[in-house]
């Protein structure tokens, strides 16, 4: 099944084209846009972007799989990404990951059966002064404790 950007998505894509001297530079922003519009970067989205940019799907796939933020498979409604790097680890991130894993009943990389949460361990989020940190979709949550992480996850609709 083929996919296409919405009207606003298409307008954003056209605007992006004006911001670079080379059309291929829009590939990363176009992949972000595809993920926003389609939920993840599907095979169809890759073919679609290749067509828009005028290159091969193989080239787009090579780019999409190089970067960790492009999800080549669907993720849950909330993508719970907990930092496991050094400053967060020193302040208990390992324990938090174990706690959330138990709480949601999934291991890192898995999605809950109801499709609400995908749990992930990620590398440094660049917020080490407020460690431990997690990113849920677009939002950072900082200075996490077991209590605050429970409150945040329990309050997500």
């Amino acid at each position, binding site marked *: 099944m083929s996919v296409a950007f919405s009207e606003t998505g298409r307008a954003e894509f056209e605007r992006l084209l004006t911001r670079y001297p080379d059309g291929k530079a829009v*590939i990363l922003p176009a992949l972000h846009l595809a993920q926003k519009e389609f939920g993840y970067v599907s095979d169809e989205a890759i073919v679609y972007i290749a067509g828009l940019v005028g290159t091969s799907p193989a080239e787009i796939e*090579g780019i999409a799989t190089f970067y960790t933020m492009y999800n080549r498979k669907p993720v849950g409604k909330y993508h719970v990404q907990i930092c496991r790097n050094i400053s967060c680890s020193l302040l208990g991130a390992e324990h938090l990951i174990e706690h959330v894993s138990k709480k949601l009943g999934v291991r890192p990389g898995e999605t809950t059966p109801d499709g609400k949460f995908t749990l992930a361990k990620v590398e440094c989020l660049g917020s*080490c002064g407020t460690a431990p940190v997690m990113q849920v979709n677009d939002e950072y949550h900082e200075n996490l404790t077991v209590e605050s992480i429970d409150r945040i996850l329990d309050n997500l609709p």
Partner: protein
Amino acid sequence: MEKVLTTHFANERYRRMDTYRQYGGYEALKKAFAMTPEAIIDEVKKANLRGRGGAGFPAGVKWGFLPKDLSRPRVLVINADEGEPGTFKDRVIMTRGPHLLVEGIVISCFALRAHASWIYIRGEFIREARIVDEAIAEAYAAGFLGKNILGSGFDLDVTVHRGAGAYICGEETSLINSLEGKRGWPRLKPPFPASVGAFGLPTIVNNVETIADIPWIVTHGGETFAALGVEKNGGTRLIGVSGAVNRPGVYEFSAGVNLKDIIYNHAGGIKDGKALKAVIPGGSSTPVLRPDEIDVSYDIESMAKIGTMAGSGGVIVIPEGTCMVRALSVLMNFYAHESCGQCTPCREGTGWLKKIVGRIEAGKGREGDVELILDLCDNMMGRTICPLADAAVMPAQSFIWKFREEFDRHIGEQKCPYGNRF
């Protein structure tokens, strides 16, 4: 102490154009337009401004590498990829003072005779990218960006380009490839970006903090900026302190601040009254220090003298009771994950480091594993296109050199004496 960047950061409104201008924002740009590009570059050279991204290269000298002939358009790319573990200062500039960056870009582009600039912001910084985008929109609306800026005849377009999750893109040639819509593979040099960079054009890549310092330098003069720091290290630095301290956060200090003073005085000492075990002084790639080594000036040369680096200004504080093998294992997982896979010594080497350090921590270390790690390090250091392999080697070697007994004990006892957790 005089502050260059953070004076108004407590004011939430400072990120808006009107408040920024109330505090004198964009006056430096007006002053710059009355100067020649060469005079501005001269002030930056006098300022002893060293690149704040980690390598510490003198910014004015870097600018001087652009070819003299103006037949090809040149561009300025801002490195806002901030991915070095322990580093979180550029995020503070982008959220608290985005106009410092925008004004710095306009002045710098005028000095470099560049008419296009991209700000490459790491993909996870979605909120930060939005705030910078808003600042750019305000600058266009106020006539500080676009065509014929302030009637000077100078044109400039600035665009935010978001990354998508790859530590390697903080390396400038990798960042350029990523900006061009490719995988973030570092390029062989030469040619250097100053002659063939983004889109084949002469390109300067500078860190966010480096460029945010430019308006102050233009306003107060390079020599005044230089005097805020120490010899060869002009100005102030934003230093992020994280890990086990009572007051973690980003601080602005003279470039010659004492490292021990940062930790014990400004950051409030070690959390829970514990003793200090180790300090990773300038981001996760910089060689670790023991507590008896930290009474040192944080400037680039003094840190080099004791075999480490001020790097990207990320001080990571490790308390007594931490298993150093486990800490190194966390870092080796990171570098193995982030190796781009282009060069064999790095792709294979980071994988082996992760595996061997991981098995030592898991109580399955073998006789000779420590020597094997050191041998691997020798075969990685300096043998790759970019410094990611070196970045993995420096912590591996220094953790072993300075905490060897912990590695030996893990192997001898076939278990982690700290119980396999932090």
